[in-house]
């Protein structure tokens, strides 16, 4: 077989394979190494021939910024401050537009509802469409759109600047301790936009083990559907009693804290996974840090605002509107004198109470599996029971409903934030986990693990605070 084949005019595939094997064996060097080496030698020659460097090649401002961002004394505060600033601008900037949209959409809805009533449409049709479907949609648009339209352009600017790989570079050390890959920091930041996108981005991690860790923990960064919920709760409860600038600063602080907790859980759970079911050695790590590039701010504002708006509207129509309808049905279908939602929330009440929440909140989380952004509207709709829906255009009215009527406390707010941060991914993200892992087992783990952690953490927090006699 080692002999050269006698020249023929045609060979079988097996002949060719055998010959290739034989030739390979005879070589005293690594074929692959020599191919890459000669390719690079050639590339070097070609590039030398065509390229001339005028002056200094170094990117001065970018290099200087890199020095600052990787310096232990300036880097950490700078990264924290960056995150806080982005969140603060989002909170402060979204406040008024949210109310305007809210007022406008509810005014429009009432108008249409009155029109329906005037035309003599049956109460259930009017109710289903305008109190159910439309309100769900209006809520989501009002609450989601402004923060997203502000957050995303800022995020895209950082992304186009080349900042994300630097975050990875700086945080790799922590992920290394957790037994995970440094690029997980990058996929984590992508998760802020959308956990499903974050899960897909995990493909940049080569090692299957570390990729799986990144996929399973991506849920611990709050995605765009959960951000507004966090913002609302932080503004309403943590920053209660403060006005103007102070209020938005304190709310931003609270959200930053929640994000930090999320990062902490990412690291903890990664460490746990990599020491138990996904045990293994760290794989090889190499990450290219691209040069900083000047983001095209006008284009970004235009494209990412338009894109986010469309995205939010799309989700509102496909996810929030149907859910709104379902909630309305739940609140208006009565069995033995009690509405379905009352039945369900009463059944969930003991469990809800044990983790510092209540039955309605848990019910909302079940209905909101397709889309996290409708959790709060669901809660409010069930509370206000749809028929006697109060006008919740201002924070004061919201507060009156939640605190005065439903007895929410700071504990409810804290645990709702924690639950919202830690609980199971939305259906889109679950589906993405499945399509990326092609494994039912890991999809179930990726769904139930965060959920159990959410229950566990909120249970511990609720019980210990109650034991301390605070609530």
């Amino acid at each position, binding site marked *: 077989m080692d002999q050269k084949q006698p020249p023929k005019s045609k060979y079988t595939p097996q002949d060719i394979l055998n010959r290739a094997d034989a030739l390979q064996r005879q070589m005293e060097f690594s074929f692959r190494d020599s191919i890459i080496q000669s390719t690079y030698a050639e590339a070097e020659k070609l590039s030398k021939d065509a390229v001339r460097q005028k002056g*200094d090649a170094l990117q001065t401002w970018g290099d200087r910024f890199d020095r600052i961002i990787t310096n232990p004394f300036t880097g950490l505060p700078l990264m924290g401050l960056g995150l806080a600033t982005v969140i603060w601008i989002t909170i402060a900037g979204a406040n008024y537009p949210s109310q305007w949209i809210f007022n406008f959409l509810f005014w429009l809805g009432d108008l249409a509802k009155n029109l329906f009533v005037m035309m003599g449409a049956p109460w259930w049709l009017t109710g289903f469409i305008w109190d159910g479907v439309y309100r769900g949609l209006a809520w989501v648009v009002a609450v989601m759109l402004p923060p997203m339209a502000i957050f995303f352009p800022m995020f895209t600017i950082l992304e186009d600047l080349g900042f994300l790989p630097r975050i990875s570079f700086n945080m790799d050390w922590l992920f290394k301790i957790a037994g995970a890959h440094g690029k997980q920091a990058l996929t984590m930041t992508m998760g802020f936009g959308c956990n499903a996108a974050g899960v897909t981005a995990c493909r940049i991690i080569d090692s299957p083990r570390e990729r799986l860790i990144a996929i399973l923990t991506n849920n611990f960064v709050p995605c765009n559907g959960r951000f507004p919920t966090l913002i609302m709760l932080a503004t309403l409860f943590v920053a209660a009693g403060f006005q103007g600038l102070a209020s938005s600063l304190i709310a931003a602080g609270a959200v930053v804290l929640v994000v930090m907790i999320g990062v902490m859980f990412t690291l903890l759970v990664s460490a746990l996974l990599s020491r138990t079911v996904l045990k293994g050695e760290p794989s090889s790590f190499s990450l290219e840090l691209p*040069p900083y590039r000047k983001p095209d701010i006008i284009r970004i504002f235009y494209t990412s605002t338009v894109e986010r708006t469309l995205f939010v509207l799309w989700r509102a129509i496909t996810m929030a509107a149907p859910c709104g309808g379902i909630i309305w049905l739940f609140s208006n279908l009565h069995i033995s004198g009690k509405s379905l939602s009352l039945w369900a929330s009463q059944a969930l009440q003991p469990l809800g109470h044990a983790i510092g929440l209540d039955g309605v909140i848990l019910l909302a989380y079940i209905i909101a599996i397709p889309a996290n952004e409708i959790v709060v509207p669901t809660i409010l709709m069930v509370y206000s029971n749809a028929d006697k829906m109060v006008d919740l255009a201002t924070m004061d009215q919201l507060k009156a409903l939640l605190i005065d009527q439903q007895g929410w406390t700071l504990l409810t707010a804290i645990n709702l934030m924690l639950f919202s941060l830690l609980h199971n991914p939305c259906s889109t993200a679950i589906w993405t986990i499945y399509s990326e892992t092609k494994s039912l087992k890991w999809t179930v783990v990726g769904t139930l693990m965060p959920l159990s952690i959410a229950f566990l953490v909120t249970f511990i927090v609720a019980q210990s605070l109650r034991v301390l006699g605070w609530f």
Partner: protein
Amino acid sequence: MEPQNKQIKVSSQQKAEEPISSACERCPLAVQRFGIDLEKWDYIVALAGNPNTGKSTLFNALTGLRQHTGNWPGKTVARAEGGFGYQDKKYKIVDLPGTYSLLSASVDEEIARDFILFGKPDCTLVVVDSTCLERNLNLVLQVMEITDKVVVVANLMDEARRRGIEVNYRRLGENLGVPVIPAAAAKGEGISEILKAIHDMVMGTTHTTPHRIASEGPLKEAVDELTDMIEKTYPGIPNARWIAMRLLDGDQKVRETLANGDLAQLTQGQVKTRESVDLDV
């Protein structure tokens, strides 16, 4: 999940004035090849290159779509498709994940490699970063081993200019033996030249003489011998030399392709390519 922009638009710069001719002899075959509706396309163009060189940006500029871009390597992880029209012809263009090489056969590289090889694009645009040509040319040379229908897009020339890097694009093109088009995709510079280069390539008016990696001694002998065997067995195969090199490198996929007879079909097409990533632990 992000909404997927799969609809196709005619690029704004190049709206075809006349109704597009439907003459397309080779298309029905291609339909089965990838499960992508090719009925309306005359030519397929592939976008390859190192990560973060602006492939998706160029893709967007050509198609008017909004494929996601970002300044970090690995932004695109799956291939995306769009289309554009130019001078009476319709083109399907495929944005591939960025790769440093086509040799390692990791998943993203496999997607890119399989498309260039089995998708048999009529033109492969290799997008390179003008500010670090050396590393980028490594990939260009590898792509040119697979296909000679290559147009090199020297992107980010604005960055190169800013950093005082002078590139003699014409000379580079002469040395490589394929067209080299300077561009700044993010600013829309060079787009019309790229369109023309694609057009000339698919019409067959561009003649390329791809620069081959010089090798000598036992390496060359081994490659030559195997190339000869492959060429004799599969007359008309476009990249026998590359296949020989892959066989010597022990490339599992290429070996399989040979063993199961898919290679024979390479001259006609009919090979399954991989679009997504399997993950098994």
